[in-house]
């Protein structure tokens, strides 16, 4: 057991457990884990007040590798267990790690309710568009045509889109990052933790064994600059090697368009400024898909609202304002009679 005094400054290493990590070599999960270790140290959190809760799948092994409290639960149910924990212990930092199958297939209902209730947990959805741990079946986020052991001729059902789903559930914090972009991920983790209420972070994660290079179209070094739009609140939505491309709102169609400054009459003034609180634009941003559009990364939407556990605690506190209830009195209230 690693015991630290509360004042000591912790390093990334202090957040790594003594357990051997059992993901496949080259798995994107390693990078996310490393980013989390560092990020928690940077945030200065206490490991004893931090809890990681997960469901089932490759990503859900995450808690075993954290030197915090951790609970590896059952398939799809992590949001419900995290909800129970946060309700009972609102002061804890509760993180939830899940995958595309865990969160959007078997656990879709729980994810929906955790988001719409706005309980203060940080949800990290590792999206690799495949079932890894069960050996490569297509997942609810797999693109149409995905060949897998269960879809030898290619999948035919339309995929779920995590950030679209989250916004549809009235999530108040929606962000997206990429497994290997440690610095950006660290910022997202920090923002997610700071946001009171349910924070939803989709992490694009490469499964090297069953779905390698699924995201190469926007993650490969050669195309990254042209295919990734990192949004920042208050800044123009510009991207591209020359930073001369940007998003413009077509006021005729209410759709977003990619324009190049200086071409077809486009000027910098046409480029939208990112406003985290603008849900209309957020809804458009999460719908953009490569290769027609860049992959939108960063905090796409953040507009805090009262969190569920705080509202519950407020009701509990109001009921308890006059002191603790007396069960003996409660049981004797109403119609009673004496027998002597």
């Amino acid at each position, binding site marked *: 057991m690693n*015991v630290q005094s509360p004042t000591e400054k912790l390093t990334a290493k202090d957040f790594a457990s003594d357990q051997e990590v059992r993901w496949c070599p080259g798995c994107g999960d390693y990078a996310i884990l490393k980013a989390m270790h560092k990020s928690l140290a940077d945030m200065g959190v206490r490991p004893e007040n931090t809890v990681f809760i997960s469901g089932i799948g490759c990503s859900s092994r995450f808690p075993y590798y*954290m030197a915090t409290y951790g*609970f590896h639960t*059952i398939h799809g149910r992590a949001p419900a*267990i995290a909800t129970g*924990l946060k*309700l*009972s212990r609102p002061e*804890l930092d509760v993180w939830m790690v899940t995958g595309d199958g865990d969160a959007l297939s078997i656990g879709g209902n729980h994810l929906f309710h955790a988001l719409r209730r706005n309980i203060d947990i940080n949800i990290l959805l590792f999206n690799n568009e495949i079932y890894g741990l069960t050996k490569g079946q297509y997942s609810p986020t797999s693109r149409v045509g995905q060949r897998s052991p269960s879809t030898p001729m290619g999948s035919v059902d339309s995929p779920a889109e995590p950030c679209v789903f989250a916004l549809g559930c009235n999530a108040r914090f929606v962000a997206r990052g990429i497994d290997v972009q440690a610095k950006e991920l660290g910022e997202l983790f920090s923002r997610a933790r700071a946001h009171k209420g349910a924070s939803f972070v989709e992490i694009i994660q490469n499964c090297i064994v069953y779905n390698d290079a699924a995201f190469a179209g926007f993650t490969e070094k050669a195309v990254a600059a042209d295919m990734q739009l990192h949004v920042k609140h208050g800044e123009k939505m510009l991207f591209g090697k020359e930073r001369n491309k940007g998003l413009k709102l077509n006021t005729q169609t209410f759709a977003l368009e990619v324009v190049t400054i200086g071409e077809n009459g486009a000027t910098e003034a046409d480029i939208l400024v990112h406003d985290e609180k603008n849900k209309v634009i957020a809804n458009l941003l999460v719908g953009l898909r490569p290769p027609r559009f860049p992959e939108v990364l960063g905090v796409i939407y953040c507009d805090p609202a009262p969190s569920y556990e705080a509202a519950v605690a407020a009701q509990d506190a109001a009921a308890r304002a006059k002191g603790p*209830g007396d069960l003996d009195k409660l049981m004797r209230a109403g119609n009673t009679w004496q027998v002597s």
Partner: protein
Amino acid sequence: MNLQADDIRSGAPDGAPIPKSDLDAIVVRFAGDSGDGVQLLGSQFSQETALVGNSLATFPDFPAEIRAPTGTTYGVSAFQINFGSRPIKTAGDQPDVLVALNPAALMVNYKGLRKGGLVILDAGAFKDKDIKRAGFAVDPRTDGTLKEFRVMEIDISAQALEVAKPFGVSQKEALRTKNLWVLGLVSWMYDRELKSTMEYIARKFGAEDPIGKANLAALNAGHAYGETHELSGDVAPVSMPSVKVEPGTYRLVSGAESLAWGLAAGAQLAGLEMVLASYPITPSSPILHILARMKQYGVTTFQAEDEIAACCAAIGASYGGKLGVTASSGPGIALKTEAIGLAIGTELPLVVVNTQRGGPSTGLPTKTEQSDLFIAVFGRNADAPMPVIASRSPCDCFEVAIEAVRLATKYMTPVMLLSDGYIANAAEPWRIPSMADYAPFKVEFRKDPEGFHPFVRDEKTLARAWAIPGTPGLMHRIGGIERDYNSGNISYDAANHQKMTDTRAAKINNIADDIPEQSVEIGEAKGKLAVVGWGSTFGPINRAVANMRAKGHDVSHIHIRHIWPLPRNLGALLKSYEKVLVAEMNNGQMLQLLRGQYLVDAKGLLKVSGQPLKISEVEDAIRAQLASA
């Protein structure tokens, strides 16, 4: 009509006169449309009856539909009460009095009435179309259908309309005072005070509401009708002395109330706050409703998105160091089983309340059954043992709930508490306990990092340490993957899995050392026949065995509270009888359990009609057992 009060009694042989002094219990059944307010009528009459000090048991018997089409047999709602000056243990086999507010209520209920019993009819509801709709070919009042009963016809509808007229309420509202008119009449018949009902009306409507005034007037009018009408020659009021019971403060309590209070009491004795996570389901929901109003008693409630989430949230709360509780009924319990397995594997305390109902699937949501014994004891994937205890009556729910919390926290295990639809809805007088009567069983969370790992066990109980998030130095990971016996880290080791499986089983089996030995409720600890029951069949079995013993038969009553693990001495005890009869409301689940555990050649009295066991059914089965070689 020639009616003597002496004839209105429970247990009287059909038609046989019984001296007035023997009149010590009466069964009354109220029946009407599901919108007629029969349940309110019944529960208010129960309250009045409790307040005069009679013993009583009730049986609310209502359909699953909230408002079925008017006048249909499937829309009939009934409330039965058995009350008397001797201890009452069941809601009664056969009503002595049936109040039928429409032909459908008569159709559904008249066959159950004792021969010579009294039928009170609302003549105003017996129009041709109502009679046809209830399924009578001709008017049952004229064709001899009711010839074995005494019939009192009153146009209650007209009475209610007349009484309500001065208050300017609608015809619909006026007709809805019928239930209170009947309550007034029946209160007069049995010399009950109207005060508690008057207070109820005042609370519900306030002093000025015309509807409240109309209801109050109907109550008084029904009472006055009895006093002044020609009735008095036929139905003299019966006064019943109060029952001799232990001194104390009493109240009427339903199973749902006493269970909810018992959970809160258990949490208090454990020194824990409680989180109840539930999903609405009949007949379990009242537990959620009651606890939702108990925030000041350290209770937080959470209405989850589904049964699975409810169980998981309760587990999350226990992981955080509160007492996690989830309450449901059969189909909901089925959904929770995977999560219960997680709590078994991670060894977290959890109380799962199962208010059983008729099944399978949706089955009979509002009717009672005891058919979840197997799912409670065995119903999980893999070897996943957990303690199971069952309540016998509304009052007993309080004790059983405390015991469930004690076992869950002491042994770090989920516990299933079995109640049923009958217990949950029925009410009985309760000698209110005092919290000071119960020994606390305060939980100590692990604080010391020295030698800690999450599966370090208490040598005696085998319970693992309960270390909760927020404790410095005890950070650890738990999960559904098999855990190493010596560190709690994940382990796929063959010998370790064997050891952990054995340890989980031993931990639960050891609870048998921490529960009372099986006692015999009535009769000797050996002999010709033991009738074994569990749960809500306690009352009818107990009464039947007492009756048969009074007639000189060698029969004993054994009632099992701890279903799993079973009491240590139960096998030997059962083998000391020549015969064992298991009476239960399922297709033989306890029967199979006892046969399997002890190789006893037990026989079953099995009933799955959605109705409680009758005393006479148990008596018949005892006779048959004693008569057979």
